């Protein structure tokens, strides 16, 4: 795709001002890094960093029957949400694979906001439409709003310091929504993120794109690109659609059973419940390498001379100072087992580990 045809987020100029290296991602020109992936990862683990995630799709569903509709198309229990609460969820297909992993926020009983992956935006809208009753209206807000994720141990107190309701920001639980002003701008502040850190995802009008961004910069938040975002999410054990989740793979193999209701019926529930009962041939695990090497998707995992799995994601972890990966490997292989990954012809030793390499204290 030529750059001329690429979309830009409302923060595009702000990224250029910070000398970002821009790359094509999901049809957008996005910052992959400003200074270095390692420096930006450390900023998030040690203080606060922010990511322009405006490319992600923000769609609202409202009207009578919206909750039942969302129960049908998602795996998590929508009924567990109160007003102003959100949850991680997935949209399964009928075969028990995954159309997308998403976040669902309940605003009121007849109004929900949903965040889709940028790469699945059109697919998700088309898929949802098939099941949407005539009483429900879908409204795509992606082009009208900005989304900035502020993450790290200092993120909450910095967001609170810029908010007109610091108490609510300081007290919100995971996935809770605070509607407040940030730097004077009306903001939907959701206590969530994709780094394993505390923090907020801020959604606000694109006409104020740089107002909030610049206030965060001035408050000491480091601008971080997609490169460190990927490193941080792998350290935190978080899946990425297209890698750990696909239209074909079972979310049970990916270890996402906790996101799937055991009580409701939904698209694909028969296939998913079957996978849960019978188990899957492979299971997603972490692998911690001895060497600081970049592990890429598709690389093979070996137990002795036997090929036992395949890498789905890999990064060099600044936190652990070594190569780490996610791999779908033979379900019988336990954590602690010594394996090797074929890295461009060289077998690099590693150990099967809990994929949550980073856990917040």
């Amino acid at each position, binding site marked *: 795709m030529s750059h001329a045809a690429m979309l830009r987020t409302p923060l595009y100029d702000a990224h250029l001002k910070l000398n970002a*290296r821009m790359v094509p991602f999901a049809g957008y020109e996005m910052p992959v890094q400003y200074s270095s*992936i390692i420096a930006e990862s450390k900023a998030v683990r040690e203080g606060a960093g922010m990511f322009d995630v405006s490319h992600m799709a923000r769609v609202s569903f409202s009207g009578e029957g919206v909750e039942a509709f969302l129960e049908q198309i998602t795996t998590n229990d929508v009924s567990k949400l109160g007003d102003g609460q959100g949850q991680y969820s997935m949209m399964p297909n009928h075969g028990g694979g995954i159309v997308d992993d998403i976040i669902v926020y309940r605003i009121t009983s007849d109004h929900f906001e949903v965040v889709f992956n940028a790469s699945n935006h059109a697919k998700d809208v088309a898929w949802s439409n098939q099941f949407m009753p005539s009483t429900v209206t879908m409204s795509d807000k992606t082009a009208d709003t900005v989304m900035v994720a502020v993450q790290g141990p200092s993120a909450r107190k910095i967001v609170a310091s810029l908010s007109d309701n610091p108490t609510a920001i300081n007290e919100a639980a995971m996935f809770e929504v605070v509607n407040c002003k940030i730097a004077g701008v009306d903001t939907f502040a959701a206590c969530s993120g994709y780094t394993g850190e505390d923090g907020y995802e801020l959604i606000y009008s694109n006409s104020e794109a740089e107002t909030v961004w610049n206030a965060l910069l001035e408050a000491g938040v480091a601008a971080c690109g997609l490169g460190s975002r990927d490193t941080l999410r792998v350290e935190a054990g978080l899946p990425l659609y297209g890698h750990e989740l696909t239209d074909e793979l079972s979310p049970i193999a990916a270890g996402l059973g906790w996101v799937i209701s055991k009580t409701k019926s939904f698209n694909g529930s028969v296939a998913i419940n079957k996978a849960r009962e019978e188990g899957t041939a492979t299971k997603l695990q972490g692998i911690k390498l001895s*060497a*600081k090497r*970049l592990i890429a998707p598709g690389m093979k995992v070996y137990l002795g001379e036997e090929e036992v799995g395949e890498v789905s994601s890999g990064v*060099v972890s600044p936190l652990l100072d070594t190569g780490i990966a996610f791999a779908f490997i033979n379900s019988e292989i336990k954590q602690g087992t010594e394996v090797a990954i074929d890295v*461009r012809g060289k077998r690099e030793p590693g150990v099967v580990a809990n994929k949550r390499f980073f856990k917040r204290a």
Partner: protein
Amino acid sequence: MSNIPADLKYTESHEWVRIEGDVATIGITDHAQSELGDVVYVDLPSVGKTLAIGETFGSVESVKTVSDLYAPVAGEVIEINGELAAASELVNSDPYGQGFMIKIRLSGEVPGTLLDAVGYGAVAH
């Protein structure tokens, strides 16, 4: 703007060459290291290996990508930069000095197709 020393020769694949007598010192350019990002691993050939012009002699791995290294000149590898095994970040911090990759004893002429700093400046943008 990246640093492009005037006394070196360059390839379009972003290697630099310093010719001193019949020895060529080879590394990757400041532009290349900047594009790659934090370098974490450098795969280099064994001393004694004979390389042809354009032959792959190793690879550079950064936190986000892997890039092959191509021999800008022909000859025998007489030295590899052993420091890089433990300190691959030298490729980022000092690409034309302590971050060099290998030294080759030339077996023939220096190819006329190598770029000078001005020519490489047009490639590296």
